[in-house]
């Protein structure tokens, strides 16, 4: 396989509403930042991959065709990826695979959502009444996690505070809650018991783009080498399915670590961006990604290990809890992992970060996408 690296990362300032820009204007903000970061222009791009949540979110059918000229993709291969909430991650993986397979030299991955133009709960309910929304789907899974791990209720509050404090260090993050505190989170309204309002992600307009190229393209640029990239899925419902430790998640993590040569994830991964739309997903995913022993994920959170400066920093960007342009959210995780190993994460940089995990999941906790990036092709010697 041809080595591939992220050499450019761009994103928008994520907001509740970006009424000042069209769909094209929104994605182009992220694209030009990524191209500038890569010191490239649209002419250097050989193919474009676009990801976003299902078309029902904004009511634009085939947005990849509608946006092809905005993305400078006229006369170039253009691909669309559909894997629900994990789509941004899968978009990065598909773009990487075109380089790794030798089909294209330099590929642009773009993902976006303009949630303000539609209604997510309507879309998640397939346009019917009595939609559960994302919180309604995941609350039972979280209840099951809390029950079996015995985690105290303040764990969810701690994650909510930590990610919002990280967001204060990220100029692009949507939620900027200066006075965030445990007190404020625990007194916020109960939305889908046990999930409180401030333990939930916002609804955002935003986009993210990354430029992926081969070894020659990476020369003279700052690469985040893609050591492993994997996606897995499982059916949404079958007797005995465990949404707390989905098999698709466990096998995806196992695969991506094997590709990357990771045998001791807790020690070899310097930081991870995990898709945490509701605070309790942090401890749950720590365990399902082998970053903590089963039942111990919440102890890392409780001890402060998942803070910037802790032993296993999680979601230094502020995570999905601070910015959630759904289709872009997965690529934002992957992009933050790349920024970290490139030493380009600014105020939310983890000192000495050499290897990072980016992860996204979607639908009924059934689609998983992950990549491991590092500052060299052989970070473990």
């Amino acid at each position, binding site marked *: 396989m041809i080595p591939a690296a992220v050499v450019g990362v761009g994103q928008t300032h994520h907001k509740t509403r*970006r009424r000042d820009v069209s769909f094209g204007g929104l994605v182009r903000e992220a694209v030009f930042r990524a191209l500038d970061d890569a010191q490239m222009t*649209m002419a250097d791009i050989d193919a474009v991959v676009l990801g976003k949540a299902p078309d029902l979110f904004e009511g634009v059918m085939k947005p990849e065709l509608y946006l092809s000229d905005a993305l400078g993709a006229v006369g170039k291969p253009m691909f669309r990826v559909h894997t629900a909430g994990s789509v941004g991650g899968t978009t990065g993986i598909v773009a990487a695979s075109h380089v790794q397979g030798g089909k294209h030299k330099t590929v642009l991955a773009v993902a976006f959502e303009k949630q303000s133009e539609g209604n997510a*709960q309507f879309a998640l309910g397939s346009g019917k009444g009595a939609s559960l929304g994302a919180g309604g789907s995941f609350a039972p899974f979280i209840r099951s996690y809390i029950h079996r791990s015995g985690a105290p209720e303040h764990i969810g509050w701690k994650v909510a505070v930590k990610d919002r404090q990280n967001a204060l260090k990220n100029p692009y993050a949507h939620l900027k809650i200066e006075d965030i505190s445990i007190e404020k989170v625990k007194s916020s309204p109960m*939305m889908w018991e046990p999930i409180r309002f401030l333990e939930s992600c916002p609804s955002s307009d935003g986009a993210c783009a990354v430029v992926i190229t081969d070894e020659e393209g990476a020369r003279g640029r700052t690469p985040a080498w893609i050591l492993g990239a994997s996606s897995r899925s499982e059916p949404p419902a079958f007797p005995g399915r465990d949404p707390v430790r989905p098999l698709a998640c466990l096998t995806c993590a196992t695969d991506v670590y094997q590709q990357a040569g990771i045998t001791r994830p807790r020690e070899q991964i310097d930081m991870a961006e995990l898709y945490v739309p509701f605070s309790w997903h942090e401890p749950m995913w720590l365990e399902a990604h082998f970053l903590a022993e089963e039942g111990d994920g919440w102890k890392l959170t409780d001890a402060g290990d998942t803070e910037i400066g802790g032993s296993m920093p999680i979601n230094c960007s502020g995570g999905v809890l601070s910015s959630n342009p759904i289709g872009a959210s997965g690529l934002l995780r992957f992009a933050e992992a790349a920024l970290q190993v490139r030493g380009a994460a600014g105020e939310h940089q983890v000192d000495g970060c050499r290897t990072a995990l980016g992860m996204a999941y979607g639908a009924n906790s059934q689609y998983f996408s992950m990549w491991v990036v590092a500052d060299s092709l052989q970070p473990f010697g």
Partner: protein
Amino acid sequence: MVRFTESTITFPYTRSLGPVVGAFMTALTEKRILGIRNGEQVICPPMEWDPSTGAELPRDLVEVGPAGTVDSWTWVPEPTEQHPLDRPFAFAFVRLDGASTPLLHAVDASSPDAMSDGMRVAPRWKGQRIGHLTDIACFVPGEEPQVDGDDLGPAAEPVQMMDYLARITYRNPVPPSSDLVVDASRQHRLVGFRCPGCGKTYVGGRGVCPIDSVEFGEEHLVELPHTGTITNHVVITPVQYPGQTETEPFARVFVLLDGSDAVLGYQPVIELPVEDVAVGVRVSAVWASPGEESDEGGGMGGAFGSLIGWMPNGEPPVDDPDLVNRIF
């Protein structure tokens, strides 16, 4: 013979127009048509970027038309309600005077014989203009713009948003297993399918086992008990989106059927206030009164057929620490 059901989804989306299309729409309310300069060319309708290279364009908007020349056209002999005119008309590429690219719009001509490449057309404006491409009701043969009825003047504010009412009608095939489940429920029978591959029991009318793709039919039917235990639950605060049917917080529960490994997902509860919904509550199936039945097959969870939900049956709650993990 596969049976189909038809359903229609409608939603009022919005569109943020951005600086260039917004200016174009605002000008339409003033009965002016704008293009944008791209080197030697003038693109109309205007775009924010060069359509062939993606390069950003300077915001150099210029007025074009109002009259123009038909580049090519096609006749629409039987308009539907989605078409801009209710009588036969032509769709045409109209190259407005001063523009390098054609605008697609309707031409109100009496017959295809009245249409030709190179013919001259001018806009017929609506009297009430809101900042939408249909502010031009259509084009008409000739050089002179027209206005339909009273001219109510331009928009008071610059146009930045557009409403877009999306509507789509689907025809979905109904798996035979869905009909079997719904028919049984009409007789107040709860049936499921036992997969010969994995041995698991599925409730609701999904067509296939998701694990090994066995297609379910009558030979896989099993009778299931009408009592069970709530294993997990959620209370939803409804967002009032268009088409929402709920106004108050409502519960959905997971029910593990007695003597079975089958869990029914996302079930409604009846005569169980949301504050009393809890793990371990014993419940019994509730069947629809005549006229209340639905045709839903329950393939993705939820109530189906004549099963409308579950109510407490008065039995003492079950205290089993593993119940909460039985979501599926």
